[in-house]
């Protein structure tokens, strides 16, 4: 019998019907659905023992303690450490993202060397170490030819780095310009204080916050938020725009950042009139005389555009409070005039708040383990901008940047001074703006991948010391260990064998076992230094406050708004930012510029208008939003955008406000500042 076409069709149909009586179609459907759950790009749930380890996160602008929750050996989530004095259980959005950020596409995983065409190629760590060693060796014969900028002013690694470059003949070791430095200069140099300023917010019942965003980006802001919530401390705010601090304040007075010190002195002036007994501190009589002449509250109120009743109300509140504290700072870290900080400290002295409960504490300086290192206080005195503006910068042949990003956050004038340095080396966990400007990039381990320590960050209440152990295995060497190794090869003995050696020595100095510190214990000490030579006033201060920098030029006053939720200079925007940054804070590729209705009317601007904002340093484009929380004659712009970081969270979002900053120098104090800057605004 021949097999015909119809037979074949019958056979196939029979087979199809028969397969319905077998497991084949049902099993295949089930198996294909399971197969589709296991595609290689679908993330897997980590399985294993859940372990909690203590760490210190340093991704943002302030370090603080956290717990890292690991499943198996993989860090999965972060939880707060209630016993840590720098966080009190709090976490900021950047910290919450820190497990995810370890896998950021912008992580630097390999050392990179820039070729003649400006392109990076991967090289081995050993080769990078060799190049670094050659550069350091070459500097031995030339004094001050190495410049080192450290982005972490709390770690013991500064001792190792500064010791090596100091023994190689260079004292050019700097921290990135910050309010901490301004506080130190004001307190130590100008007021003859001792130690570093600590802020006993825990015991304060009233805070006068001048200029800075105390609850969002000043000092130990995670701790600040927790303390505000816990103690319900009363806050009075003075500044150029309504921020997260002012909205919870008992009273907000909106004035220009350049006038804050006048407001503070007007308060002192008023208090001298209503106080019977003045603190017998050096210079008090000259001070009160000066205030009566130059800072009469009525005249100040008229000049700076606030009401006398605001000055009186805050002055009376300060007088009545049991433990008031005055905190001043820049709208964005390091940018403001030192005069505001100086005036705040003077007000604290006037109110007799030094080394008092809830006041300013004189925190002792960190111990120096390596004798050849540059002491922390000396580094604080070193002014990077001063160097860049001086002729000494031309002698610098090699610059090393450690976990810092001056090419993003500092004014263009400073960046221009740094970019001309012949060879630049960057230690960074992320491929950020500074890394891209450098000739050699050496990866720095992520904070979970290395041992690190932290001594008394700026804004702390008492001296404190924490240690974060290595939690995740990584083959990226600790830069501090690299330096020790290079030192040995160059015949320089720093006196320690490794970074863990210095951490162990420090823990012994504080009388705590290193293992206890690694498990999350924090050493604290309430001891204060006694500022025997403290003064409230002298001729130098009179000179400083007799001059007036508030030369109001044409244009609008730029207020850079710095808040923690836009990430940090080092990291940029991060995964969880999607949840916390509002739609009206991002203008696509434009920045958002906030102006109040009066300014909008004067400049014929409307909501969503596109404008060009220009200074002599640069220009950016922005979309206008009307916001009555900004002073008249000013434009406020969020910092933290306009990043040159190659990941989806940062690319093509906003523009960099730092491009607008104009660097200025206070001739009397010698201190540099760039906020406020005057800008021209025109419609596109």
């Amino acid at each position, binding site marked *: *019998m021949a097999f015909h076409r119809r037979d074949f069709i*019958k*056979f196939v*149909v*029979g*087979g199809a*019907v*028969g397969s319905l009586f077998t497991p084949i179609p049902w099993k295949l459907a089930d198996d294909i659905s399971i197969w589709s*759950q296991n595609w290689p790009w679908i993330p897997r749930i980590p399985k294993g023992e859940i372990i909690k380890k203590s760490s210190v996160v340093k991704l943002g602008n302030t370090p603080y303690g956290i717990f890292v929750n690991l499943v198996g050996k993989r860090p999965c989530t972060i939880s707060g450490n209630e016993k840590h004095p720098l966080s009190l259980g709090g976490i900021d959005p950047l910290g919450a993202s820190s497990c995810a950020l370890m896998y950021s596409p912008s992580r630097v995983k390999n050392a990179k060397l820039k070729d003649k065409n400006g392109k990076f190629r991967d090289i081995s760590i050993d080769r990078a170490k060799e190049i670094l060693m050659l550069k350091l060796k070459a500097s031995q014969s030339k004094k001050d030819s190495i410049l080192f900028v450290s982005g972490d002013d709390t770690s013991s690694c500064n001792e190792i780095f500064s010791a090596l470059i100091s023994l190689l003949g260079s004292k050019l070791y700097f921290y990135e310009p910050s309010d901490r430095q301004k506080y130190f200069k004001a307190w130590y140099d100008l007021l003859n204080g001792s130690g570093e300023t600590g802020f006993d917010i825990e015991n304060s019942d009233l805070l006068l916050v001048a200029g800075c965003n105390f609850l969002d980006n000043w000092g130990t802001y995670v701790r600040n938020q927790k303390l505000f919530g816990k103690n319900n401390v009363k806050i009075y705010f003075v500044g150029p725009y309504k921020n997260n601090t002012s909205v919870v304040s008992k009273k907000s007075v909106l004035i220009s950042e350049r006038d804050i010190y006048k407001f503070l002195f007007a308060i002192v002036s008023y208090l001298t009139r209503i106080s019977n007994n003045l603190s017998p501190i050096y210079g008090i009589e000259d001070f009160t005389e000066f205030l009566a002449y130059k800072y009469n509250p009525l005249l100040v109120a008229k000049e700076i555009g606030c009401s006398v009743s605001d000055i009186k109300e805050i002055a009376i509140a300060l007088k009545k409070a049991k433990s008031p504290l005055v905190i001043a700072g820049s709208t964005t870290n390091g940018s403001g005039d030192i005069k505001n900080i100086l005036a705040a400290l003077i007000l604290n002295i006037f109110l007799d708040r030094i080394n008092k409960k809830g006041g300013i504490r004189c925190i002792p300086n960190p111990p120096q383990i390596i004798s050849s290192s540059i002491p922390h206080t000396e580094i604080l005195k070193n002014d990077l901008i001063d160097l860049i503006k001086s002729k000494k910068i031309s002698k610098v042949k090699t610059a090393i940047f450690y976990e810092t990003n001056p090419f993003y956050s500092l004014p263009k004038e400073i960046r221009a001074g740094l970019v001309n340095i012949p060879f630049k080396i960057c230690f960074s966990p992320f491929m950020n703006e500074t890394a891209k400007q450098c000739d050699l990039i050496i990866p720095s381990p992520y904070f979970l991948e290395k041992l690190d320590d932290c001594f008394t960050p700026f804004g702390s209440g008492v001296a404190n010391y924490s240690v974060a152990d290595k939690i995740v295995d990584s083959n990226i060497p600790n830069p501090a260990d690299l330096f020790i190794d290079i030192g040995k090869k160059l015949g320089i003995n720093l006196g320690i064998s490794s970074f863990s050696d210095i951490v162990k020595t420090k823990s012994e100095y504080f009388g705590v076992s290193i293992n206890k510190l690694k498990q999350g214990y924090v050493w604290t000490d309430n001891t204060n230094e006694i500022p025997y030579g403290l003064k409230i006033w002298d001729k130098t201060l009179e000179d400083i406050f007799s001059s007036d920098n508030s030369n109001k030029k044409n244009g609008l006053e730029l207020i850079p708004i710095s808040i923690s939720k836009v990430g940090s200079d080092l990291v940029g925007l991060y995964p969880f930012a999607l949840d916390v940054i509002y739609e009206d804070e991002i203008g696509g590729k434009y920045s958002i510029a906030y102006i109040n209705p009066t300014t909008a009317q004067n400049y014929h601007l409307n909501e969503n208008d596109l404008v060009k904002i220009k200074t002599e340093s640069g220009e950016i484009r922005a979309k206008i939003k009307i916001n009555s929380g900004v002073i008249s004659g000013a434009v406020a712009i969020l910092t933290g955008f306009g990043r040159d970081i190659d990941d989806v969270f940062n690319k093509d979002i906003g523009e960099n406000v730092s491009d607008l900053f104009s660097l200025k120098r206070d001739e009397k104090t010698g201190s540099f500042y760039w906020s406020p800057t005057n800008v021209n605004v025109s419609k596109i």
Partner: protein
Amino acid sequence: MNKKKKSGLTPFFFGFLTALVIGWWIFPNIIFSKQEQPFNFSHKAHVEQLGDCSACHYFRDDGSYNGVPSLESCAACHSEAITGAPDEKLFVEKYVKKNREVPWKIYQKQPDNVYFSHIAHKKYACKTCHPDVGNSDTLPPYFENKITGYSKYTMKMYQCERCHAKNNASNACYICHK
């Protein structure tokens, strides 16, 4: 003219039967591939030394189940080869000395969308769901589904549901799918 002989339904039944044979005999054998474990492990020898299952398979302090012991647990005794057995030598050379976790093939691995809590089932003996390997010197053969990548012995949902129903435990979705 010769009339073509009609074959009738014969091809249909032939196709039907062929499908049945393929579906019930051939398909189950080709869908799974037999794979070897990294090396042989004698449960019997270890039970004689250590006691019962919980010496290596235990609940942690937080209530989670450790499952297959980690390299660290095994290396606590086997940091060097102590018995001279070839499989033990292989374990020490290839895994202990190189600090590599052993890539055991798991007979009862569940997908990520299934939440199984051993501690919720602790009143049942291990061999209720797992083969009684405690008396065996060899590991059971491992068959892997070529499409899904799961073991042939991975419990399916209907098996869990049946036992839940028998024991008056809830079969609501959220019990197993969080």
